[in-house]
Protein backbone atom coordinates (compact mmCIF):
# COMPACT_ATOMS: atom_id res chain seq x y z
CA UNK A 1 0.00 0.00 0.00
CA UNK A 2 1.46 3.35 -1.01
CA UNK A 3 1.04 6.01 1.63
CA UNK A 4 2.63 9.35 2.49
CA UNK A 5 4.51 8.74 5.75
CA UNK A 6 7.41 10.30 7.57
CA UNK A 7 10.85 8.71 7.28
CA UNK A 8 10.67 7.66 10.93
CA UNK A 9 7.53 5.69 10.31
CA UNK A 10 8.91 4.00 7.21
CA UNK A 11 11.54 2.45 9.52
CA UNK A 12 9.25 1.66 12.48
CA UNK A 13 6.65 -0.04 10.28
CA UNK A 14 9.31 -2.22 8.70
CA UNK A 15 10.84 -3.12 12.08
CA UNK A 16 7.41 -4.22 13.33
CA UNK A 17 6.99 -6.53 10.34
CA UNK A 18 10.32 -8.20 11.16
CA UNK A 19 8.79 -9.43 14.46
CA UNK A 20 11.53 -8.30 16.87
CA UNK A 21 11.60 -9.79 20.39
CA UNK A 22 13.38 -6.96 22.16
CA UNK A 23 13.59 -3.28 21.25
CA UNK A 24 15.70 -1.15 23.51
CA UNK A 25 16.54 2.48 22.86
CA UNK A 26 17.29 5.87 24.27
CA UNK A 27 15.81 8.83 22.39
CA UNK A 28 18.09 11.21 20.49
CA UNK A 29 17.37 13.72 17.74
CA UNK A 30 16.88 12.94 14.84
CA UNK A 31 16.12 9.34 15.73
CA UNK A 32 13.38 9.97 18.28
CA UNK A 33 10.23 9.32 16.29
CA UNK A 34 11.45 5.90 15.16
CA UNK A 35 11.45 4.64 18.73
CA UNK A 36 8.38 6.71 19.65
CA UNK A 37 6.48 4.97 16.88
CA UNK A 38 7.73 1.58 18.06
CA UNK A 39 6.87 2.41 21.68
CA UNK A 40 3.35 3.34 20.58
CA UNK A 41 3.03 0.08 18.64
CA UNK A 42 4.22 -1.79 21.72
CA UNK A 43 1.76 0.04 23.97
CA UNK A 44 -1.03 -0.76 21.52
CA UNK A 45 -0.15 -4.46 21.59
CA UNK A 46 0.89 -4.51 17.93
CA UNK A 47 4.37 -5.94 18.43
CA UNK A 48 3.45 -9.49 19.40
CA UNK A 49 6.13 -11.34 21.34
CA UNK A 50 8.24 -8.26 21.99
CA UNK A 51 9.58 -6.34 24.96
CA UNK A 52 10.13 -2.62 24.56
CA UNK A 53 12.63 -1.19 27.04
CA UNK A 54 13.42 2.50 27.41
CA UNK A 55 17.04 2.57 28.51
CA UNK A 56 18.73 5.12 30.74
CA UNK A 57 21.35 5.81 28.05
CA UNK A 58 22.55 4.53 24.70
CA UNK A 59 25.23 2.59 26.54
CA UNK A 60 22.47 0.88 28.52
CA UNK A 61 20.38 0.29 25.42
CA UNK A 62 23.21 -1.40 23.56
CA UNK A 63 24.17 -3.42 26.64
CA UNK A 64 20.65 -4.75 27.09
CA UNK A 65 20.51 -5.68 23.42
CA UNK A 66 23.75 -7.61 23.74
CA UNK A 67 22.19 -9.58 26.58
CA UNK A 68 18.92 -10.11 24.74
CA UNK A 69 20.63 -11.09 21.50
CA UNK A 70 22.93 -13.52 23.32
CA UNK A 71 19.80 -15.06 24.83
CA UNK A 72 18.48 -15.69 21.32
CA UNK A 73 16.19 -12.70 20.76
CA UNK A 74 15.81 -10.77 17.52
CA UNK A 75 16.63 -7.25 18.62
CA UNK A 76 16.46 -3.68 17.33
CA UNK A 77 17.67 -0.25 18.30
CA UNK A 78 18.12 3.12 16.66
CA UNK A 79 20.44 5.96 17.55
CA UNK A 80 22.88 8.46 16.07
CA UNK A 81 25.74 10.84 16.72
CA UNK A 82 26.67 11.13 20.41
CA UNK A 83 24.35 8.21 21.07
CA UNK A 84 26.16 5.97 18.62
CA UNK A 85 29.59 6.78 20.00
CA UNK A 86 28.32 6.28 23.53
CA UNK A 87 27.18 2.84 22.34
CA UNK A 88 30.47 2.19 20.64
CA UNK A 89 32.21 0.30 23.43
CA UNK A 90 29.28 -2.10 23.55
CA UNK A 91 28.92 -2.31 19.78
CA UNK A 92 32.54 -3.39 19.30
CA UNK A 93 31.70 -6.13 21.81
CA UNK A 94 28.51 -7.06 19.99
CA UNK A 95 30.48 -7.59 16.78
CA UNK A 96 33.14 -9.64 18.55
CA UNK A 97 30.44 -11.75 20.19
CA UNK A 98 28.98 -12.26 16.70
CA UNK A 99 25.52 -11.00 17.65
CA UNK A 100 23.21 -10.20 14.70
CA UNK A 101 21.88 -6.95 16.18
CA UNK A 102 20.15 -4.66 13.68
CA UNK A 103 20.31 -0.95 14.31
CA UNK A 104 19.38 2.16 12.40
CA UNK A 105 21.69 5.14 12.58
CA UNK A 106 19.98 8.39 11.62
CA UNK A 107 23.21 10.02 10.54
CA UNK A 108 24.06 13.18 12.47
CA UNK A 109 27.24 15.20 12.97
CA UNK A 110 29.43 14.76 16.04
CA UNK A 111 30.22 17.39 18.68
CA UNK A 112 31.96 19.76 19.12
CA UNK A 113 30.60 22.19 18.20
CA UNK A 114 27.26 20.62 18.96
CA UNK A 115 25.26 19.95 15.82
CA UNK A 116 22.00 18.08 15.47
CA UNK A 117 22.23 18.16 11.68
CA UNK A 118 23.24 15.59 9.15
CA UNK A 119 26.58 14.27 8.04
CA UNK A 120 28.26 10.85 8.22
CA UNK A 121 30.91 11.41 10.89
CA UNK A 122 29.09 9.26 13.46
CA UNK A 123 28.77 5.98 11.56
CA UNK A 124 32.17 6.44 9.91
CA UNK A 125 33.70 6.77 13.40
CA UNK A 126 32.82 3.13 14.13
CA UNK A 127 34.02 1.90 10.76
CA UNK A 128 36.37 -0.66 12.32
CA UNK A 129 33.91 -2.21 14.79
CA UNK A 130 33.02 -5.21 12.65
CA UNK A 131 29.54 -3.90 11.95
CA UNK A 132 28.07 -4.02 8.46
CA UNK A 133 27.06 -0.57 7.20
CA UNK A 134 24.49 0.12 4.48
CA UNK A 135 23.78 3.72 3.39
CA UNK A 136 20.35 4.42 1.92
CA UNK A 137 19.29 7.03 -0.59
CA UNK A 138 15.65 7.53 0.36
CA UNK A 139 12.99 6.38 2.79
CA UNK A 140 11.78 3.57 0.56
CA UNK A 141 15.27 2.11 0.57
CA UNK A 142 15.40 2.54 4.37
CA UNK A 143 12.03 0.78 4.67
CA UNK A 144 13.22 -2.07 2.46
CA UNK A 145 16.61 -2.32 4.18
CA UNK A 146 15.33 -3.56 7.55
CA UNK A 147 14.21 -7.10 6.59
CA UNK A 148 17.30 -7.45 4.42
CA UNK A 149 19.51 -6.38 7.33
CA UNK A 150 18.09 -9.12 9.57
CA UNK A 151 18.40 -11.71 6.85
CA UNK A 152 22.06 -10.91 6.24
CA UNK A 153 23.01 -10.47 9.90
CA UNK A 154 21.32 -13.70 11.03
CA UNK A 155 22.83 -15.79 8.24
CA UNK A 156 25.12 -18.28 10.00
CA UNK A 157 27.90 -17.52 7.56
CA UNK A 158 27.81 -13.92 8.82
CA UNK A 159 26.52 -13.35 12.40
CA UNK A 160 27.59 -9.73 12.75
CA UNK A 161 25.64 -6.58 13.64
CA UNK A 162 24.08 -4.68 10.74
CA UNK A 163 23.68 -0.90 10.77
CA UNK A 164 21.34 0.83 8.33
CA UNK A 165 22.53 4.40 7.89
CA UNK A 166 19.94 6.98 6.86
CA UNK A 167 20.52 10.71 6.73
CA UNK A 168 19.01 12.57 9.67
CA UNK A 169 16.40 15.23 8.76
CA UNK A 170 16.87 14.86 5.02
CA UNK A 171 15.25 11.44 5.30
CA UNK A 172 13.97 11.00 8.85
CA UNK A 173 11.79 14.13 8.87
CA UNK A 174 10.59 13.94 5.27
CA UNK A 175 7.03 13.01 4.41
CA UNK A 176 6.93 11.21 1.08
CA UNK A 177 5.01 8.36 -0.58
CA UNK A 178 6.24 4.93 0.54
CA UNK A 179 5.11 1.51 -0.65
CA UNK A 180 4.56 0.02 2.79
CA UNK A 181 5.32 -3.67 3.11
CA UNK A 182 2.77 -6.10 4.47
CA UNK A 183 3.29 -8.87 7.01
CA UNK A 184 2.84 -11.65 4.47
CA UNK A 185 5.61 -10.33 2.21
CA UNK A 186 8.08 -9.93 5.07
CA UNK A 187 7.16 -13.33 6.55
CA UNK A 188 7.77 -14.99 3.19
CA UNK A 189 11.21 -13.37 3.00
CA UNK A 190 12.47 -13.38 6.58
CA UNK A 191 12.21 -16.63 8.54
CA UNK A 192 12.02 -16.59 12.37
CA UNK A 193 15.43 -16.14 13.98
CA UNK A 194 17.05 -19.40 14.98
CA UNK A 195 20.23 -18.56 16.88
CA UNK A 196 23.21 -20.84 16.38
CA UNK A 197 23.98 -20.65 20.09
CA UNK A 198 22.19 -18.85 22.90
CA UNK A 199 22.31 -18.52 26.63
CA UNK A 200 19.73 -20.21 28.82
CA UNK A 201 19.73 -21.12 32.48
CA UNK A 202 19.65 -24.75 31.35
CA UNK A 203 22.68 -24.39 29.15
CA UNK A 204 24.90 -21.58 30.41
CA UNK A 205 27.32 -20.12 27.87
CA UNK A 206 29.86 -17.34 27.96
CA UNK A 207 30.01 -14.68 25.26
CA UNK A 208 32.94 -12.40 24.69
CA UNK A 209 35.04 -13.82 27.47
CA UNK A 210 38.75 -13.50 28.08
CA UNK A 211 41.00 -14.49 25.18
CA UNK A 212 44.71 -14.55 25.92
CA UNK A 213 47.28 -14.02 23.16
CA UNK A 214 47.27 -17.64 22.04
CA UNK A 215 43.60 -17.48 20.98
CA UNK A 216 42.46 -13.81 20.59
CA UNK A 217 43.78 -13.39 17.08
CA UNK A 218 41.82 -16.35 15.71
CA UNK A 219 38.54 -14.69 16.76
CA UNK A 220 39.52 -11.55 14.87
CA UNK A 221 40.48 -13.54 11.77
CA UNK A 222 37.07 -15.20 11.95
CA UNK A 223 35.39 -11.77 12.05
CA UNK A 224 37.19 -10.73 8.88
CA UNK A 225 36.21 -13.98 7.20
CA UNK A 226 32.59 -13.45 8.24
CA UNK A 227 32.68 -9.92 6.80
CA UNK A 228 34.10 -11.28 3.55
CA UNK A 229 31.40 -13.98 3.39
CA UNK A 230 28.82 -11.27 4.05
CA UNK A 231 29.60 -9.81 0.65
CA UNK A 232 28.11 -12.77 -1.19
CA UNK A 233 25.35 -13.29 1.35
CA UNK A 234 24.33 -9.68 0.77
CA UNK A 235 24.21 -10.13 -2.98
CA UNK A 236 21.94 -13.16 -2.59
CA UNK A 237 19.70 -11.32 -0.13
CA UNK A 238 19.54 -8.16 -2.25
CA UNK A 239 18.58 -10.25 -5.27
CA UNK A 240 15.94 -12.16 -3.38
CA UNK A 241 14.56 -8.89 -2.07
CA UNK A 242 14.28 -7.50 -5.59
CA UNK A 243 12.24 -10.55 -6.54
CA UNK A 244 10.00 -10.47 -3.48
CA UNK A 245 9.39 -6.71 -3.39
CA UNK A 246 9.79 -5.77 -7.03
CA UNK A 247 12.31 -3.10 -6.01
CA UNK A 248 15.93 -3.63 -7.03
CA UNK A 249 18.32 -1.31 -5.19
CA UNK A 250 21.44 -2.80 -6.76
CA UNK A 251 24.38 -4.61 -5.20
CA UNK A 252 27.16 -3.23 -3.05
CA UNK A 253 27.29 -0.30 -5.41
CA UNK A 254 24.82 0.99 -7.98
CA UNK A 255 26.20 2.64 -11.10
CA UNK A 256 24.50 4.99 -13.55
CA UNK A 257 26.21 5.55 -16.91
CA UNK A 258 29.17 3.24 -16.18
CA UNK A 259 31.26 4.09 -19.25
CA UNK A 260 31.64 7.77 -18.45
CA UNK A 261 34.97 9.60 -18.33
CA UNK A 262 34.02 11.28 -15.06
CA UNK A 263 32.43 9.29 -12.24
CA UNK A 264 30.97 10.88 -9.12
CA UNK A 265 30.99 8.66 -6.02
CA UNK A 266 28.67 9.32 -3.07
CA UNK A 267 26.61 7.68 -0.31
CA UNK A 268 23.27 8.58 1.26
CA UNK A 269 20.47 10.98 0.50
CA UNK A 270 22.40 13.30 -1.81
CA UNK A 271 22.52 10.52 -4.39
CA UNK A 272 18.99 11.23 -5.70
CA UNK A 273 19.71 14.84 -6.58
CA UNK A 274 23.18 13.92 -7.86
CA UNK A 275 21.61 11.47 -10.31
CA UNK A 276 19.39 14.25 -11.65
CA UNK A 277 22.36 16.62 -11.96
CA UNK A 278 24.38 13.94 -13.76
CA UNK A 279 21.52 13.28 -16.19
CA UNK A 280 21.21 16.98 -16.97
CA UNK A 281 24.95 17.41 -17.51
CA UNK A 282 24.93 14.40 -19.82
CA UNK A 283 22.22 16.10 -21.86
CA UNK A 284 24.73 18.92 -22.38
CA UNK A 285 27.22 16.38 -23.70
CA UNK A 286 29.35 15.88 -20.59
CA UNK A 287 30.58 12.30 -20.10
CA UNK A 288 29.67 11.89 -16.44
CA UNK A 289 28.22 9.00 -14.44
CA UNK A 290 27.33 8.18 -10.86
CA UNK A 291 28.51 5.50 -8.43
CA UNK A 292 26.38 5.09 -5.35
CA UNK A 293 28.14 3.20 -2.58
CA UNK A 294 25.53 1.22 -0.64
CA UNK A 295 27.66 -1.01 1.58
CA UNK A 296 30.55 0.79 3.25
CA UNK A 297 31.31 -2.34 5.31
CA UNK A 298 32.05 -4.74 3.82
CA UNK A 299 33.72 -2.32 1.39
CA UNK A 300 32.99 -2.96 -2.30
CA UNK A 301 36.60 -3.30 -3.39
CA UNK A 302 36.20 -5.44 -6.53
CA UNK A 303 33.06 -3.57 -7.58
CA UNK A 304 34.81 -0.20 -7.42
CA UNK A 305 37.84 -1.54 -9.28
CA UNK A 306 35.56 -2.66 -12.08
CA UNK A 307 33.42 0.50 -12.09
CA UNK A 308 36.35 2.92 -12.08
CA UNK A 309 38.89 1.02 -14.22
CA UNK A 310 38.46 3.23 -17.29
CA UNK A 311 37.45 6.48 -15.61
CA UNK A 312 39.64 9.51 -16.24
CA UNK A 313 38.44 11.53 -13.27
CA UNK A 314 36.73 10.36 -10.09
CA UNK A 315 34.97 12.83 -7.78
CA UNK A 316 34.37 11.47 -4.27
CA UNK A 317 31.91 13.29 -2.05
CA UNK A 318 32.58 12.62 1.63
CA UNK A 319 30.22 13.65 4.42
CA UNK A 320 32.92 13.27 7.08
CA UNK A 321 36.63 13.90 7.57
CA UNK A 322 39.49 11.90 8.97
CA UNK A 323 41.35 14.90 10.33
CA UNK A 324 44.96 14.90 9.32
CA UNK A 325 44.19 12.98 6.15
CA UNK A 326 41.01 13.41 4.08
CA UNK A 327 37.51 12.04 3.55
CA UNK A 328 37.21 8.41 4.67
CA UNK A 329 35.27 7.23 1.61
CA UNK A 330 37.99 8.68 -0.55
CA UNK A 331 40.71 7.01 1.53
CA UNK A 332 39.00 3.65 1.17
CA UNK A 333 38.31 4.12 -2.51
CA UNK A 334 41.91 5.03 -3.35
CA UNK A 335 43.13 2.03 -1.44
CA UNK A 336 40.66 -0.22 -3.26
CA UNK A 337 41.53 0.89 -6.78
CA UNK A 338 45.28 1.20 -6.23
CA UNK A 339 46.99 -0.37 -9.22
CA UNK A 340 43.68 -0.89 -11.03
CA UNK A 341 42.86 2.60 -12.28
CA UNK A 342 44.84 5.61 -13.35
CA UNK A 343 41.98 8.01 -12.70
CA UNK A 344 42.66 11.35 -11.04
CA UNK A 345 40.88 11.48 -7.69
CA UNK A 346 39.09 14.66 -6.60
CA UNK A 347 38.22 14.17 -2.96
CA UNK A 348 35.75 16.62 -1.47
CA UNK A 349 34.36 16.93 2.04
CA UNK A 350 30.89 18.42 1.65
CA UNK A 351 27.69 18.94 3.61
CA UNK A 352 29.22 18.75 7.09
CA UNK A 353 26.85 19.42 9.99
CA UNK A 354 23.85 19.87 7.72
CA UNK A 355 25.44 22.36 5.30
CA UNK A 356 23.03 22.27 2.39
CA UNK A 357 24.15 20.91 -0.96
CA UNK A 358 21.92 22.70 -3.46
CA UNK A 359 21.60 21.57 -7.05
CA UNK A 360 23.72 24.42 -8.46
CA UNK A 361 26.47 23.62 -5.93
CA UNK A 362 26.64 20.02 -7.15
CA UNK A 363 26.56 21.12 -10.78
CA UNK A 364 29.41 23.56 -10.29
CA UNK A 365 31.47 20.96 -8.45
CA UNK A 366 31.26 18.56 -11.40
CA UNK A 367 31.69 21.23 -14.06
CA UNK A 368 34.81 22.64 -12.37
CA UNK A 369 36.44 19.21 -12.45
CA UNK A 370 35.24 18.45 -15.98
CA UNK A 371 36.51 21.75 -17.33
CA UNK A 372 39.91 21.54 -15.65
CA UNK A 373 39.44 24.28 -13.05
CA UNK A 374 40.31 21.93 -10.19
CA UNK A 375 43.38 19.95 -9.32
CA UNK A 376 43.21 16.40 -7.98
CA UNK A 377 43.45 16.04 -4.22
CA UNK A 378 41.47 16.83 -1.10
CA UNK A 379 39.44 19.96 -0.46
CA UNK A 380 36.45 21.14 1.52
CA UNK A 381 33.64 22.47 -0.64
CA UNK A 382 30.68 24.58 0.35
CA UNK A 383 32.23 26.34 3.34
CA UNK A 384 32.67 30.08 3.73
CA UNK A 385 36.13 31.53 3.37
CA UNK A 386 37.42 32.72 6.74
CA UNK A 387 40.60 33.77 8.38
CA UNK A 388 41.53 31.49 11.22
CA UNK A 389 42.55 33.39 14.33
CA UNK A 390 45.57 31.80 15.96
CA UNK A 391 45.74 33.17 19.50
Amino acid at each position, binding site marked *: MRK*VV*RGFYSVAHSVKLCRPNVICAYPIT*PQTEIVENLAAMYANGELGDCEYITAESEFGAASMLVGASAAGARVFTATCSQGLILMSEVLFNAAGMRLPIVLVNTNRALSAPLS*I*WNDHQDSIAIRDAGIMQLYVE*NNQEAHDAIPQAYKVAENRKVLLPFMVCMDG*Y*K*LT*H*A*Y*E*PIDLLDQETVDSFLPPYEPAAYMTTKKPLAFGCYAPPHIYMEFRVAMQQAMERAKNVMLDVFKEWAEVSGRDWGGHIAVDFPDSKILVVAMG*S*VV*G*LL*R*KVVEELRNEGLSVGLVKIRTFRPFPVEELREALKDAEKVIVLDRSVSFGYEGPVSIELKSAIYGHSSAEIYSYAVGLGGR*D*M*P*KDFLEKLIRDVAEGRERPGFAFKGHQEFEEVIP
Partner: protein
Amino acid sequence: MGSKEVVKILIEVRFHGRGGQGAVTAADILAVAGFKEGYYTLSFPMFGAEKRGTPVVSYLRISDEPIVARDEIYNPDYVVVLDPTVMETVNVIAGLKKGGMLISNYPKSSDDLKTKLKADELGIKVATINATKVAMEVLGRPITNTTMVGAFGGATRLVSLETLLDVVNEWFKGELAEKNAKLIEEAYRYMMEVCR
Protein backbone atom coordinates in the same frame (compact mmCIF):
# COMPACT_ATOMS: atom_id res chain seq x y z
CA MET B 1 -13.80 22.74 -5.93
CA GLY B 2 -12.84 24.74 -9.02
CA SER B 3 -10.78 23.32 -11.86
CA LYS B 4 -7.51 21.78 -10.80
CA GLU B 5 -4.36 23.34 -12.22
CA VAL B 6 -2.07 20.98 -14.14
CA VAL B 7 1.27 20.59 -12.39
CA LYS B 8 4.17 21.24 -14.72
CA ILE B 9 7.24 19.35 -13.59
CA LEU B 10 7.72 20.77 -10.11
CA ILE B 11 6.06 23.20 -7.69
CA GLU B 12 8.18 24.35 -4.76
CA VAL B 13 6.73 25.96 -1.65
CA ARG B 14 8.46 27.50 1.35
CA PHE B 15 6.67 28.04 4.65
CA HIS B 16 7.66 30.64 7.22
CA GLY B 17 6.26 30.70 10.72
CA ARG B 18 7.22 30.71 14.34
CA GLY B 19 7.86 27.61 16.42
CA GLY B 20 4.54 26.30 17.74
CA GLN B 21 2.35 27.61 14.92
CA GLY B 22 2.66 24.43 12.89
CA ALA B 23 4.65 25.47 9.82
CA VAL B 24 6.03 21.93 9.62
CA THR B 25 2.59 20.36 9.94
CA ALA B 26 1.23 22.73 7.27
CA ALA B 27 3.76 21.42 4.75
CA ASP B 28 3.12 17.83 5.88
CA ILE B 29 -0.67 18.11 5.52
CA LEU B 30 -0.22 19.47 2.01
CA ALA B 31 2.20 16.64 1.17
CA VAL B 32 -0.46 14.11 2.13
CA ALA B 33 -3.19 16.06 0.32
CA GLY B 34 -1.08 16.50 -2.83
CA PHE B 35 -0.42 12.76 -2.91
CA LYS B 36 -4.17 12.08 -2.65
CA GLU B 37 -4.59 14.31 -5.69
CA GLY B 38 -2.25 12.02 -7.62
CA TYR B 39 1.03 13.93 -7.33
CA TYR B 40 4.36 12.93 -5.92
CA THR B 41 5.07 15.04 -2.86
CA LEU B 42 7.90 15.66 -0.40
CA SER B 43 7.82 17.85 2.68
CA PHE B 44 10.58 18.47 5.18
CA PRO B 45 11.48 21.03 7.84
CA MET B 46 14.53 23.24 8.11
CA PHE B 47 14.96 21.94 11.58
CA GLY B 48 16.32 24.33 14.18
CA ALA B 49 16.36 24.24 17.93
CA GLU B 50 12.56 24.19 17.78
CA LYS B 51 11.79 26.73 20.45
CA ARG B 52 8.36 28.23 20.57
CA GLY B 53 8.36 31.64 19.00
CA THR B 54 11.56 31.49 16.96
CA PRO B 55 11.29 31.80 13.17
CA VAL B 56 11.00 28.38 11.48
CA VAL B 57 11.01 27.26 7.86
CA SER B 58 9.59 24.19 6.17
CA TYR B 59 9.43 23.05 2.58
CA LEU B 60 7.09 21.28 0.18
CA ARG B 61 7.67 19.92 -3.29
CA ILE B 62 4.79 18.74 -5.50
CA SER B 63 5.53 17.08 -8.82
CA ASP B 64 4.14 14.80 -11.46
CA GLU B 65 7.26 12.65 -11.23
CA PRO B 66 9.15 11.08 -8.29
CA ILE B 67 10.98 13.74 -6.27
CA VAL B 68 14.70 13.26 -5.70
CA ALA B 69 15.77 16.76 -4.68
CA ARG B 70 16.16 17.06 -0.91
CA ASP B 71 18.07 20.33 -0.88
CA GLU B 72 16.47 23.42 0.61
CA ILE B 73 14.22 25.52 -1.60
CA TYR B 74 15.89 28.75 -2.71
CA ASN B 75 13.58 29.77 -5.56
CA PRO B 76 10.05 28.84 -4.50
CA ASP B 77 6.97 29.18 -6.66
CA TYR B 78 4.97 29.99 -3.53
CA VAL B 79 5.83 31.35 -0.11
CA VAL B 80 3.35 30.80 2.71
CA VAL B 81 3.72 32.96 5.82
CA LEU B 82 1.97 31.78 8.97
CA ASP B 83 2.85 34.79 11.11
CA PRO B 84 3.08 38.36 9.79
CA THR B 85 5.63 39.36 12.44
CA VAL B 86 8.17 36.97 10.88
CA MET B 87 8.37 39.44 7.99
CA GLU B 88 9.95 41.99 10.34
CA THR B 89 13.11 39.91 10.70
CA VAL B 90 13.09 37.44 7.80
CA ASN B 91 13.06 38.33 4.11
CA VAL B 92 10.32 35.84 3.34
CA ILE B 93 10.16 36.64 -0.38
CA ALA B 94 13.89 35.96 -0.89
CA GLY B 95 14.29 34.06 -4.14
CA LEU B 96 10.55 33.94 -4.84
CA LYS B 97 10.21 33.32 -8.55
CA LYS B 98 8.93 36.05 -10.85
CA GLY B 99 5.23 35.34 -11.28
CA GLY B 100 5.32 33.47 -7.97
CA MET B 101 2.97 34.19 -5.12
CA LEU B 102 3.26 35.16 -1.47
CA ILE B 103 0.33 33.83 0.52
CA SER B 104 0.45 35.48 3.90
CA ASN B 105 -1.30 35.73 7.20
CA TYR B 106 -1.64 39.51 7.40
CA PRO B 107 -4.01 41.80 9.29
CA LYS B 108 -4.49 44.14 6.34
CA SER B 109 -5.44 43.83 2.68
CA SER B 110 -3.45 42.14 -0.08
CA ASP B 111 -2.97 45.58 -1.68
CA ASP B 112 -1.46 46.95 1.51
CA LEU B 113 1.19 44.22 1.66
CA LYS B 114 1.72 44.41 -2.10
CA THR B 115 2.62 48.10 -1.80
CA LYS B 116 4.81 47.52 1.25
CA LEU B 117 6.84 44.82 -0.50
CA LYS B 118 6.90 46.60 -3.88
CA ALA B 119 5.46 43.40 -5.26
CA ASP B 120 4.61 44.81 -8.70
CA GLU B 121 8.22 45.88 -9.26
CA LEU B 122 9.39 42.42 -8.26
CA GLY B 123 6.77 40.76 -10.45
CA ILE B 124 5.29 38.71 -7.64
CA LYS B 125 1.67 38.20 -6.59
CA VAL B 126 0.46 38.72 -3.04
CA ALA B 127 -2.64 37.32 -1.35
CA THR B 128 -3.42 37.87 2.32
CA ILE B 129 -5.82 36.55 4.91
CA ASN B 130 -6.12 37.56 8.57
CA ALA B 131 -5.40 34.02 9.73
CA THR B 132 -4.57 34.94 13.32
CA LYS B 133 -8.03 36.51 13.75
CA VAL B 134 -9.78 33.55 12.11
CA ALA B 135 -7.81 31.04 14.19
CA MET B 136 -8.48 32.93 17.43
CA GLU B 137 -12.20 32.93 16.67
CA VAL B 138 -12.37 29.20 15.97
CA LEU B 139 -9.53 27.64 17.99
CA GLY B 140 -9.09 30.31 20.63
CA ARG B 141 -5.34 30.07 19.96
CA PRO B 142 -3.15 31.81 17.37
CA ILE B 143 -2.19 28.55 15.64
CA THR B 144 -2.55 29.40 11.98
CA ASN B 145 -1.27 26.37 10.10
CA THR B 146 -4.56 24.85 8.99
CA THR B 147 -5.95 28.26 8.04
CA MET B 148 -2.91 28.84 5.84
CA VAL B 149 -3.22 25.32 4.38
CA GLY B 150 -6.76 26.26 3.35
CA ALA B 151 -5.52 29.61 2.04
CA PHE B 152 -2.82 27.87 -0.03
CA GLY B 153 -5.44 25.49 -1.44
CA GLY B 154 -7.85 28.29 -2.34
CA ALA B 155 -5.13 30.49 -3.84
CA THR B 156 -3.43 27.79 -5.92
CA ARG B 157 -6.21 25.19 -6.49
CA LEU B 158 -3.41 22.58 -6.48
CA VAL B 159 -5.49 20.58 -4.03
CA SER B 160 -9.26 20.46 -3.75
CA LEU B 161 -11.15 21.51 -0.66
CA GLU B 162 -12.62 18.00 -0.39
CA THR B 163 -9.17 16.45 -0.28
CA LEU B 164 -7.96 18.90 2.35
CA LEU B 165 -11.00 18.18 4.50
CA ASP B 166 -10.36 14.43 4.16
CA VAL B 167 -6.75 14.86 5.26
CA VAL B 168 -7.53 17.14 8.18
CA ASN B 169 -10.07 14.63 9.43
CA GLU B 170 -7.42 11.92 9.34
CA TRP B 171 -4.83 14.17 10.92
CA PHE B 172 -6.86 15.45 13.85
CA LYS B 173 -9.47 13.78 16.04
CA GLY B 174 -12.86 14.87 17.36
CA GLU B 175 -13.48 18.52 18.08
CA LEU B 176 -10.02 19.52 16.90
CA ALA B 177 -10.71 17.93 13.52
CA GLU B 178 -14.02 19.80 13.25
CA LYS B 179 -12.46 23.14 14.14
CA ASN B 180 -9.53 22.73 11.79
CA ALA B 181 -11.83 21.59 8.99
CA LYS B 182 -13.87 24.75 9.55
CA LEU B 183 -10.70 26.87 9.34
CA ILE B 184 -9.59 25.18 6.15
CA GLU B 185 -12.95 25.59 4.48
CA GLU B 186 -13.29 29.24 5.49
CA ALA B 187 -9.76 30.11 4.32
CA TYR B 188 -10.09 28.10 1.09
CA ARG B 189 -13.31 29.85 0.07
CA TYR B 190 -11.98 33.26 1.11
CA MET B 191 -8.78 32.85 -0.93
CA MET B 192 -10.71 31.64 -3.96
CA GLU B 193 -12.41 35.04 -3.87
CA VAL B 194 -9.18 36.98 -3.25
CA CYS B 195 -7.39 35.17 -6.10
CA ARG B 196 -10.33 35.13 -8.48
